[in-house]
């Protein structure tokens, strides 16, 4: 399929179905589904049928609209009204009001800063297109980047464009994507693989899930472009089994793309072939680590191995392998369409583009947001997030999950980019952002993450397996009021030991939540140890 043919397909799709007078777009991503959006959708359809309005009124399932906490969300076009918290009982009133005055009590103000302060690249189709229809994606310029790459660009030119964009991996470490692609491209070998890391093990994060559920073709297109650039013909999507809806939509998307010759053999009539298969994760956080992920695809226990050699040279079954995160791949098509320079003009000097964050915890507007790099934490939490609810006070924001740290109030005006976050002892990570108020105890939070690391440690190396368990034990002593200052000193010593002697990223970063809470909230540790008190009233002290 040439770009010209794609364009024609997109147009014929529009013509085949004349624009209905009213269109109700209802979110059918997992968040809203769990709030009953499928029942609302059915009720709306019934209501429309009953009134014989099928020809002028269409109900369309779309991906995540972002403000998941207020779900089910829907958007009425062309009225431009957004409704929140809709139930089946609201269907008659909504249909009745089409083209007239909106149903007042359901309106979600779409001019609030939650929506207006965002900048959408990765999520540009999210909440707009039906994730189960490839035609919808194509009508939004989908697959034109792939067609263009195959027709007009050499693999090296593709890599140059990605390098020029300054895109860095969105899976956590922020490694330059162009550099990684060119390493795999240069590696010799008869076969190569492209893997999409959709394990999303970070507790408190759902960016990747949302992208997969809302715009699966975007990820497939990115993978295909990457495969062309590095010379691979087989790809794997490693998805958590806990994300059944994402898996289902991906399977549908792969089938549709194959049928149109956009995946599979001789893509777009060229000599380039690329097949994609799905592999299900089985609930092990460590499988997000790239060498463990590869072991898992090979059917083994997901245990990391020392690097080098890196997967770029020695990966799946020993062949050169490119591994990128879901969001990284989702950035590829727009970069090719608009040029690397366009992407590089967004964000900061060293962190280009936008970042998707899962904003959750004690903040008014929880949900999925995409913002330009360099925005401040205060803008995210107070403008977009709407601040702390129920009259409570902001205490800290946790970024980067178990590998990250807690950032206190004094850094709220800091720009959000890879370097700034690292400077204050946290990381960007994959984009989980959990807001805490004074009802959270920071020692308890550190203990929570340590508990997570103990149960997720793969057990291969001693510093991590034994060290994290020791640290958990010490933290538990502190939160139950049984610790001494010597215990605290020992805890700090262990932080260093585990950090510098563990084999993989899990162990190397496991002490971070402890270190960052010790750095900013040391007095809370002291209160537990010396005064036998939990200032937040969370920990139960044994007398």
């Amino acid at each position, binding site marked *: 399929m040439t770009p010209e043919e794609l364009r024609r397909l997109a147009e014929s799709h529009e013509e085949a179905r004349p624009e209905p007078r009213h269109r109700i777009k209802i979110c059918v991503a997992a968040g809203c589904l769990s*709030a009953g959006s499928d029942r609302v959708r059915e009720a709306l359809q019934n209501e429309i049928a009953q009134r014989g309005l099928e020809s002028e009124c269409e109900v369309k399932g779309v991906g995540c609209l972002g403000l998941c906490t207020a779900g089910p969300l829907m958007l009425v076009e062309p009225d431009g009204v957004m409704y929140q918290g809709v139930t089946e009982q609201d269907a008659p009133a909504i249909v009745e009001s089409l083209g007239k005055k909106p149903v007042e009590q359901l309106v979600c103000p779409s001019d609030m800063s939650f929506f207006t302060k965002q900048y959408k690249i990765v999520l540009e189709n999210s909440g707009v297109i039906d994730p189960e229809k490839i035609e919808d994606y194509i009508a939004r310029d989908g697959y034109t980047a792939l067609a263009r790459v195959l027709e007009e660009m050499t693999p090296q030119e593709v890599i140059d464009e990605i390098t020029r964009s300054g895109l860095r991996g969105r899976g956590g470490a922020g490694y330059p994507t162009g550099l990684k692609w060119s390493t795999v491209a240069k590696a010799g070998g008869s076969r190569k693989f492209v893997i999409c890391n959709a394990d999303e093990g970070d507790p408190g994060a759902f960016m990747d899930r949302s992208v997969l559920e809302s715009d699966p073709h975007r990820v497939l297109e990115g993978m295909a472009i990457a495969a062309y650039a590095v010379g691979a013909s087989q790809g794997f999507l490693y998805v958590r089994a806990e994300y059944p809806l994402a898996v289902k939509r991906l399977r549908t998307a792969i089938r549709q793309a194959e049928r149109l010759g956009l995946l599979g053999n001789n893509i777009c009539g060229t000599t380039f072939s690329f097949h994609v298969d799905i*592999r299900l994760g089985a609930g092990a956080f460590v499988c997000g680590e790239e060498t463990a992920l590869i072991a898992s695809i090979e059917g083994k226990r997901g245990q990391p191995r020392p690097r080098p050699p890196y997967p770029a040279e020695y990966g799946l079954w020993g062949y050169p392998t490119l591994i990128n995160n879901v969001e990284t791949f989702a950035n590829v098509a727009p970069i090719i369409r608009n040029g690397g320079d366009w992407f590089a003009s967004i964000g900061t000097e060293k962190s280009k583009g936008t970042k998707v964050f899962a904003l959750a915890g004690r903040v008014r507007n929880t949900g999925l947001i995409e913002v330009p790099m360099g925005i401040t934490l205060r803008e995210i939490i107070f403008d977009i997030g709407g601040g702390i609810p129920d009259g409570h006070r902001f205490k800290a924001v946790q970024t980067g999950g178990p590998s990250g740290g807690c950032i206190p109030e004094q850094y709220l005006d800091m720009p959000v980019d890879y370097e700034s976050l690292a400077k204050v002892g946290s990381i960007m990570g994959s984009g989980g952002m959990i807001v805490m108020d004074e009802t959270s105890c920071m020692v308890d939070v550190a203990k929570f993450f340590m508990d997570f690391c103990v149960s997720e440690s793969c057990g291969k190396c001693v510093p991590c397996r034994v060290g994290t368990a020791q640290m958990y034990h010490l933290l538990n002593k502190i939160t139950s009021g049984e610790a001494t200052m010597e215990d605290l000193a020992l805890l700090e010593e262990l932080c260093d030991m585990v950090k510098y002697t563990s084999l993989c990223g899990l162990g190397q970063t496991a002490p971070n939540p402890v270190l960052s809470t010790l750095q900013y909230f040391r007095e809370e540790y002291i209160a537990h140890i010396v005064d036998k008190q939990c200032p937040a009233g969370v920990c139960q002290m044994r007398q």
Partner: protein
Amino acid sequence: MHFTKPSPPSDDKRWRIVEATMRRHGYDPNALIETLHSVQQTFGYLETEALQYVAKALRVPLSKVYGVATFYHFFTLKPQGEHTCVVCMGTACYIKGAPHVVAAISEKYQIQPGETTADGKLSLLTARCIGACGLAPAVVFDGEVAGKVTPEEALQRIGRWTDQ
């Protein structure tokens, strides 16, 4: 060496689903995890007989099959109760009170996470994050995700299963 494919442990029709998975992967030992997913989805858990059969059919040592089945949290070697309640204990849910939900259920039904009530009616499980963090605390009742769940609501939903 000639290899005769073993037959399933019983003539339960559900084995066909597992067979199909293995066939699709050409009985490749690499397909171990995919096959275990298929067994668990079909039978609800990984019973000993099933593990032995998979080991033979894929020509993987039984020790390795056990190693893999026990390494991954998603796999369970025990049958689940008639109903399952999975409380998310990821960071967002933890901050928003998931521990209180677990405590309420634990107390009322006298089971710890990972356990099933004596009458086999209810299994209580926890998850590390089910990706519905915007709706924290999230609980999955028999496969259906519910958001912003209070301890009272959780007990009420479970009560519908057990009180009759």
